[in-house]
């Protein structure tokens, strides 16, 4: 791409653990090729230097949890031609969306010596609840292969290959034996968006749902089946309440089992 100026790419952080940014740093082999094609204008995990906007591509990690976040995300959107959210925090509110089920002010008064200095919102919300997002990349953390794929697709002006079907498809392509059918292990794979290449089932664990709901998630049927296989309602609530607790299909299903749990 010599002659042309390189697209300016910025990485932004909101409420998150930085794991998704680290996935980008982890792309050792591709990182060099990437820096040939793009100018990294802001990347908190890699460098303090910030190049002034506007930006061609912004990658946003993290969820909105403070009043300051609310205005900062508007500013980033204003400065970005294309904006992609990366990871479960940015796309669904993250593990910190567990606060949405409780009273945050109670936590604050227990945890902090001087709660009056803490300014926070009641809810942890995905970026798309506040601004227009051009593409959402799922995962907790995102898969580095998919992250490189999204950036390559952007640079080559094509659609990224990040299929929204179930994790089961990846299990079957790999030849992994289904842990749910062969062992009765609790698995969220049938309702979970692909992307990890069925990492957990391949290592004999049920899927934890890191990539959030698949395109057509029948969480009610899966929830019923998990109960039939012996999980109690509290376990099903916990299964649906992790990194993607705030994603609508998972949220509704955890509430359904929570109601049932309260009945007992």
């Amino acid at each position, binding site marked *: 791409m010599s002659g042309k100026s390189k697209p300016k790419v910025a990485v932004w952080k909101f409420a998150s653990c930085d794991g998704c940014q680290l996935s980008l740093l982890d792309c050792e082999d591709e990182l060099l090729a990437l820096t040939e094609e793009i100018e990294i204008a802001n990347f908190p995990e890699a460098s303090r230097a910030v190049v002034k906007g506007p930006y061609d591509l912004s990658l946003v990690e993290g969820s909105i949890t403070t009043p300051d976040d609310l205005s900062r995300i508007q500013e980033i959107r204003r400065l970005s031609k294309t904006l992609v959210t990366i990871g479960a925090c940015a796309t669904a509110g993250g593990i910190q969306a567990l606060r949405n089920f409780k009273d945050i002010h109670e936590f604050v008064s227990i945890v902090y010596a001087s709660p009056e200095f803490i300014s926070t919102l009641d809810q942890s919300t995905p970026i798309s609840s506040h601004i227009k997002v051009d593409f959402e990349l799922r995962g907790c953390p995102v898969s580095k292969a998919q992250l490189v794929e999204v950036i390559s697709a952007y640079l*080559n002006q094509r659609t990224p290959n990040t299929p*929204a*079907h*179930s994790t089961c498809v990846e299990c079957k392509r*790999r*030849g992994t034996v289904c842990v749910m*059918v062969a062992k009765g292990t609790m698995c969220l794979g*049938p309702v979970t968006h692909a992307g990890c290449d069925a990492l957990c089932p391949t290592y004999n664990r049920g899927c934890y749902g890191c990539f959030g709901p698949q395109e*057509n998630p*029948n969480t009610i049927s899966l929830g019923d089946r998990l109960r039939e296989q012996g999980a109690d309602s509290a376990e099903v609530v916990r299964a649906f309440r992790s990194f993607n607790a705030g994603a609508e299909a998972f949220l509704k299903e955890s509430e359904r089992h929570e109601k049932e749990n309260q009945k007992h």
Partner: protein
Amino acid sequence: MNKPGVIDREGLNRLIQTLIGRGYQVVGPTVRDEAIVYDNVFSIEDLPAGWTDEQEGGTYRLKKRSDDALFGYTLGPHSWKRFLHPPERRLWQAQKDSLDFDIVPEQPDNTKYAFLGMRSCELHAIAIQDKVFIQSPHTDLHYQSLRQNALFVAVNCGQAGNTCFCVSMQTGPKVEAGYDLVLTEILDDSHHSFLIEAGSEAGKNILEEVKAGPAGAGEIKKAEEIVTNTAKQMGRAMETGNIKELLYENLEHPAWGEIAERCLSCANCTMVCPTCFCSTVEDVTDVAGDHAERWQKWDSCFTMDFSSIHGGAVRNSTQSRYRQWMTHKLASWQDQFDTSGCVGCGRCITWCPVGIDLTREVAVIRESTTCQEENFSGSEAQNENS
């Protein structure tokens, strides 16, 4: 006719060594992750001695047998499809030079596979995939190459699984065609042997090298009894009379909506089915945009992308997707390929996480329609019976 011979466990090991010696990659049943899967086999030590499986809708359990049978299981989650029609395969690569780009097609794979332990339904499934990939206007050269090189060592089933219904589909349990060699495992307190028969020139040739002993009338009879017994153990049955018309006439049946409440749209059924052949292609580029590749990957009519055209997916309800799957398997497959798309292996029942059972769903539709018709045809049916 080829005369059957008899080999013992050592003889079976000789068969494996002979195949390896002739350049075959031998793939057969082996235990991994609490299931019997197909993987490379180097000696009889790799076979699942003393293991069996218990299956129900949505449940599979590997269990110990009371004997040392090597083929004493029914079917696992894998089918031979993963070798002949692999889940992911590069179709071509493209490389950019200063002015233009070059396309480098992938060469057909010429691995020589020998599949060991193939069941009758599985041979039928491959015959169906042959129609799709070879006997069609668009031959899949990769499949064709692997298929032509492959050698099939079948086994007559010594027991049927709880989700099997090959008798209904007329695809088993006796191995009748399409094999190079067929074994029947004979096991009692005093001895463990295998009746072996060749079904092709290649099979005959290999059998000569393996040096089987002559089969006695007793052994031949015993082998016959084994497979006759298996036929009586089918865990499932499906009435196939007029099934095409039945499904075509019931495209709006309430059963589809009821199934959709349970169906997860997870695609497991299509992935495990030995005849399902659909795939998608993914085009990828490197970051610099100098190199591109096209990959073929197993796809399923249960994904949204599968029916996506400009403007969105055509089948965006689970109901329409399940209906598509089942009516294709059992009805429109007949129009398309002149055969059923189902061989009654039962994998889609066992490996469906919620145990949706196509034999039951067909029966539900059939019963509801015969109930409606009973008033008119009841007397006729009685006449036929008398």
